[in-house]
């Protein structure tokens, strides 16, 4: 039995509780009584995957159906993988401890591009051929993917049978229903995929042909076998009534986000031009204060968590945020639950909200001005002014905080050396502000940290046409930043741009990139988002061997009329809107948020009603 084999080695590896299941809230069913088994795979470690909210939602949703059983699978750590390969332990699911290759569906969530090699590694560990074409025609082991990166899944097109576009609550069940029905009819995989491609939100990559010009730019994308020309993403119409789990699996080991979490809104009204999530999750929809409070309470009671988080892209944009907080506080205080509010924007960060945050005992606050000067903030449409930031810092400092972290992006379109120096200047003004306040925290110095990340242009944003800054440009900018800092109260940190370059390649890659991913994995690449595992040389070699240039994908400017690899996927964000926004960015003009003014992005045209 697999379980005995696993247990034999568990005490030889780090944090064995991650590999044996049995957590409170995990769902055990009798496999002889279920008709469809779904292995929900997170292509990263347990500690990261178990923090992911989307997995919790879909896990509960599928398991709520009596005849479907969804189980969890994570990428094993390097120490355990070595044992698994040596001892012939296949990748298994945590509930039944059955091999992944016994499952009807093998579903991955694509949260970030640097996890792609882990997908290949996990399929291989499961004993499943990584290329879809090598997996035969039996209706079984259907490999599917969902999540934000599915908005351009082309670099993974060769490995997957199906991509699921948009929100998964309805379409996942529709897909499983179809499978169950066709399995009973004795259908084969090909006919299942053909039929599945007719479901809204289902993209079957093998039903599309892509041709290229000699210069590598896409010539055409053609649908065949009756598959739709454009695949539309799915949207949940009534977000307030949509399924939300009343139970979470509560892990034994400490994971990244170990807490109860209620999703309070979907979409974002802000339209920051660099932010993919701000566009692909539109339209903006809120959950009512009543539903939030009810779900929060149910979750706290069933999990026993001591921390509750209100999750969304921008929680303080909820129109009923004060009702939610005042509705929750009597309960959370009585039950000793800490309320945590991630994703607050600086422009509506009030004293009351800060009082709540302080209770979770954080020593510092984090703000993301994203750019150092107002000019560049206008370009990226991050409509936060310096006065707003200063006002918020005043509230924070007088409230007892003395550490402030400022997040910036480096390599934004139109960025100059002055914009880089602007980061330091802004940090210095925060330092000056601290010492100008008579009621600042006494006996402590202020510490302002500048944290920079290399900007990665993403599909479905107004910057999808833009080149990423090259490695040389980024190095130059980092030097400018370091040279501009003269105070000990300001610290700067940055990351090696290599991972961001790879991220940019994969984010806007086409189908030819599949082969490079395969080669890089074959050379040993996995856990690319983990600094200690990342090896850029592997990737460079892989692209060289495929005759592809990373710069073609990362640092090339696209014309407005170029066919993008994702142009057949419809996220309702119109190309005209993206072009308009790109032109406004070049002209340093801002766009108001959706509540103030509709900018006709295309979403309301699809939903048939105004968002506000």
């Amino acid at each position: 039995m697999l379980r005995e084999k696993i247990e034999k080695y568990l005490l030889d590896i780090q944090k064995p509780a991650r590999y044996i299941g049995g957590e409170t809230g995990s769902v055990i069913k009798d496999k002889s009584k279920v008709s469809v088994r779904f292995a929900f795979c997170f292509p990263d470690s347990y500690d990261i995957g178990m923090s992911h909210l989307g997995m919790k939602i879909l896990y509960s949703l599928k398991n709520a159906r009596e005849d479907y059983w969804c189980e969890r699978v994570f990428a094993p750590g390097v120490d355990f993988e070595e044992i698994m390969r040596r001892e012939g332990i296949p990748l298994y699911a945590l509930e039944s401890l059955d091999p992944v290759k016994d499952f009807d569906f093998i579903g991955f969530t694509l949260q970030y591009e640097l996890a792609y090699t882990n997908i290949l590694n996990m399929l291989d560990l499961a004993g499943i051929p990584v290329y879809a074409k090598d997996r035969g025609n039996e209706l079984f082991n259907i490999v599917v993917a969902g999540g934000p990166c599915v908005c351009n899944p082309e670099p993974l097109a060769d490995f997957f049978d199906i991509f699921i576009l948009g929100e998964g609550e309805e379409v996942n069940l529709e897909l499983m229903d179809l499978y169950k029905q066709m399995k009973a009819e004795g259908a084969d995989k090909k006919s299942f995929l053909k039929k599945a491609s007719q479901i809204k939100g289902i993209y079957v990559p093998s039903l599309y042909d892509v041709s290229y010009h000699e210069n590598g730019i896409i010539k055409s994308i053609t649908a065949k076998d009756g598959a739709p020309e454009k695949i539309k993403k799915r949207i949940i119409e009534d977000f307030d009534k949509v399924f939300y789990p009343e139970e979470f699996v509560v892990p034994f080991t400490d994971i990244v986000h170990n807490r109860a979490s209620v999703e309070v809104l979907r979409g974002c009204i802000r339209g920051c031009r660099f932010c993919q999530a701000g566009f692909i999750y539109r339209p903006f929809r809120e959950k009512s204060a009543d539903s939030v409070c009810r779900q929060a309470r149910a979750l706290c009671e069933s999990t026993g968590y001591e921390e509750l988080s209100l999750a969304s892209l921008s929680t303080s944009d909820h129109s009923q945020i004060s009702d939610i907080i005042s509705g929750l506080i009597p309960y959370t205080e009585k039950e000793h639950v800490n309320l945590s509010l991630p994703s607050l924007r600086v422009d509506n960060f009030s004293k009351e909200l800060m009082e709540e945050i302080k209770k979770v005992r954080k020593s510092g606050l984090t703000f993301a001005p994203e750019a150092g000067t107002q000019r560049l903030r206008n370009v990226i449409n991050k409509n936060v002014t310096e006065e707003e930031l200063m006002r918020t810092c005043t509230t924070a400092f007088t409230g007892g905080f003395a550490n402030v972290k400022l997040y910036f992006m480096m390599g934004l379109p139109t960025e100059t050396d002055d914009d880089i120096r602007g980061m330091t200047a802004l940090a210095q003004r925060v330092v000056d502000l601290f010492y100008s306040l008579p009621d600042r925290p006494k006996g402590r110095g202020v510490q302002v940290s500048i944290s920079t990340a290399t900007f990665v242009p993403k599909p479905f944003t107004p910057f999808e046409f833009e080149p990423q800054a090259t490695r040389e440009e980024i190095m130059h900018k980092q030097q400018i930043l370091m040279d501009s800092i003269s105070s000990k109260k300001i610290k700067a940190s940055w990351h090696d741009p290599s991972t961001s370059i790879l991220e940019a390649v994969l984010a806007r890659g086409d189908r030819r990139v599949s082969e490079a991913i395969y080669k890089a994995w074959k050379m040993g690449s996995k856990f690319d988002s983990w600094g200690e595992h990342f090896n850029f040389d592997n990737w460079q070699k892989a692209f060289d061997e495929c005759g592809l240039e990373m710069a073609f994908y990362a640092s090339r400017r696209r014309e407005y009329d170029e066919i993008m690899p994702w142009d057949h996927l419809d996220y309702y964000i119109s190309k005209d809107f993206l072009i308009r926004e790109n032109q406004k960015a070049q002209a340093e003009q801002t766009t108001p948020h959706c509540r103030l003014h509709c900018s006709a992005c295309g979403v309301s045209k699809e939903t048939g009603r105004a968002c506000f």
Partner: protein
Amino acid sequence: MIKVRAVFEKCGRAKYISHLDLNRCMQRCFKRSGIPIWYTEGFNPHIYITFALPLSLGYESKVEIMDFNITEDEPFEIIAEKLNKAMPEGIKVVKVYSPQTKHTLIKYADFKMIFSGDVKSELEDFIENGNMTTIKKTKRGEKEIDLREFVRLTGCDKEGENTSVTLRLPAGNDLNINPSLVTDLFIAQCGKETELLSVERTAILDAEDKIFE
């Protein structure tokens, strides 16, 4: 505030829960159970639980002991029932009572171990004549000790194809001998190919070898 002691089992998959994780796990079990649990009253209120003896990762036990407080009277059997509803697979409360003793009275613990193959005579010989000098890590560094004076063999039997052994070892605040110190020495000196298949704590005792309650 009422003091309460619970005896619980930690078996099966639960043996992979480390001591640190067990504390967190119990905090959440208490919260889920809905019993009127007492929180500490400091700046950072949390559920107050003390474990009598930490259990090494990978060991099972029938006799784990934890103390906590409740704020209002509730029958012990109801507490056990509510806790068991909230416990993960492998953890089960078997007894709840009002503690009359302090954890400091704990002096010994029994461990039942299963070795693969028939190593009964080898084991008896080892306990009698083997070299039991080993290095013990303490807070103040490493120290060489002879385990012979501390180890008592209380049972050794064939169990199917395997051999089951019960050792009584010092436990508690003054001196703790982890059974792995003994089993590592035995496996090295056994002369036969054998593997330690499982370890289970079967009793916690006081200075008079009476079950600690």
